[in-house]
């Protein structure tokens, strides 16, 4: 798979175009300004890939354009992949049971965002989803819960069943049931905001492996992050997490916690 992220030099008054699946990006270096445009379709199966192709500057109402003032010192832009800004909820194809003292790994295909940075600068010019997943609500009722993105592809037990696209990363979620009861998984919340991105030598993006330990169902699920993906050998860390994990963080990964009436505690 071709690598689309990295640094690209843009000549004065030149426009470069990227086509990342359904998303098209244009970057133009003008006189004392940079113009960044993006347009996106909603076809998530689109896997076109065009990297830094010189093009004409586009025009049209459906293009989201932004202009940035810049001294002439900057000559290049950096494109970086990023994980979604909300957690994602993935369904299993059928209700999936994990008996007590069992462990399984589910593979999840996570849609990516693309960030555009000016050379040597920390703040991004653009942070946009390559394919905008649908919103969904993850919670016991419509009053309590959390807004997440819903994934269209279900979690897979075998890695080879997972479609590979340039604008998706793979996350391996190990689920360990240490509780005294059988764990039923119909949907799973993956805390992608806590994860980093790694690239394999073949250009596939992965998140580090994470373990969800279901030990005390009443309290939440323990989350453990490995320091790299375990399924691939050669890796390079491409992007850090959107937020840091706090100590003693517990996740309601399986949507089984209910908020007590009139209180903030969970039962």
């Amino acid at each position: 798979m071709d690598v689309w992220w990295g640094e690209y030099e843009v000549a004065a008054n030149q426009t470069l175009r990227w086509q990342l699946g359904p998303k098209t990006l244009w970057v133009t270096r003008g006189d004392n300004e940079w113009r960044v445009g993006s347009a996106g379709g909603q076809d998530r199966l689109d896997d076109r890939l065009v990297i830094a192709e010189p093009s004409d500057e586009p025009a049209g109402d459906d293009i989201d354009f932004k202009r940035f003032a810049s001294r002439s010192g900057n000559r290049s832009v950096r494109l970086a992949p990023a994980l979604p800004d909300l957690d994602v909820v993935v369904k299993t194809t059928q209700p999936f049971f994990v008996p007590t003292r069992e462990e399984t790994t589910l593979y999840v295909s996570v849609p990516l965002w693309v960030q555009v940075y000016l050379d040597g600068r920390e703040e991004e010019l653009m942070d946009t989803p390559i394919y905008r997943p649908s919103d969904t609500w993850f919670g016991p009722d419509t009053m309590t819960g959390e807004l997440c993105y819903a994934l269209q592809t279900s979690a897979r037990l075998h890695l080879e069943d997972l479609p590979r696209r340039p604008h998706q990363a793979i996350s391996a979620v190990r689920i360990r049931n240490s509780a005294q009861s059988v764990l039923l998984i119909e949907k799973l919340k993956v805390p992608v905001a806590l994860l980093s991105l790694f690239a394999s030598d073949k250009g596939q993006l992965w998140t580090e492996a994470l373990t969800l330990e279901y030990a005390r169902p009443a309290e939440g699920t323990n989350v453990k992050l490995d320091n790299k993906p375990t399924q691939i050998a050669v890796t390079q860390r491409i992007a850090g997490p959107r937020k840091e994990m706090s100590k003693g963080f517990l996740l309601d990964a399986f949507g089984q916690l209910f908020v007590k009436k009139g209180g903030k505690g969970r039962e």
Partner: protein
Amino acid sequence: MSEFLSNLGLSDLLATDRVLDIVRAALILVVGLLVARLASGAAARGLRRRLSAQEVMLVKRLTYYVLLALVVTSALHQLGFKVGVLLGAAGVLSVAIAFASQTAVSNLISGFFLIAERSFVVGDLLDVNGRVGTVISVDLLSVKVRTFDNLMLRVPNSEMINATIVNLTRFPIRRLDLQIGVAYKEDTQRVRQILFDVADRNPLCLEEPAPLFIYKGYGDSALELQFSVWAKRENFLALRNSINEEIKSAFDEHGIEIPFPHRTLYTGSVTEPFPVRVVTGYAGSAPRSEDVSR
């Protein structure tokens, strides 16, 4: 004798004592006001994280006014007034004032209940008797709401406590109910599938809670359907606009008819067929007409 006293300068001294009392009272007033302001500010800062904005404001004002009352009483005492008598007189006066200011007191007490009930806070979007706006402040006498056309709506607390208020932003997600009518000839299973596909394609439409399809009944001109979709409350308006457009386009694409009210003219079983005149030719030229019976 008076001459003797005057020689001693006693009347001057008396006058000096009086001045001293006034100075002391003024000092108590100034320092007291300063302390009251600082103390109420400190109380508000201390409670800001634990209480809502209105409750903090209430605590701040109560602290300030209680301290102010104490300071004023001390200052009066310093000036030689008998506070007990004054308070007695104030008691009688307060009855008179209470009668005179029933509305204000009723608003004030309603204000306390509104704040304690926490049914809305500053920044919430409310529907009060059909007028929708954002709460800009909850004061002791009234609630101030900014309507969408940028008008300031002042609703007295007593009215607020009796009114049925809809808080549109209390919960993070909202349901949008679309009332749709389709022609009787349409296959409702197909219509249902088209609606679900539209909801599936719109990223603002929540996947869970899933959209709801309700067959409402047989209307005068159309099959009446309700399609309910959920959205994040901030995206409610955007979803309302986008999904209606998308449903219309999907219906047009699949040839689903949205009927307008029909009227069939029937003049009884023995009526002769209506004569229909077919006109050919253009304006300006004499129309050729023929009667056609159906």
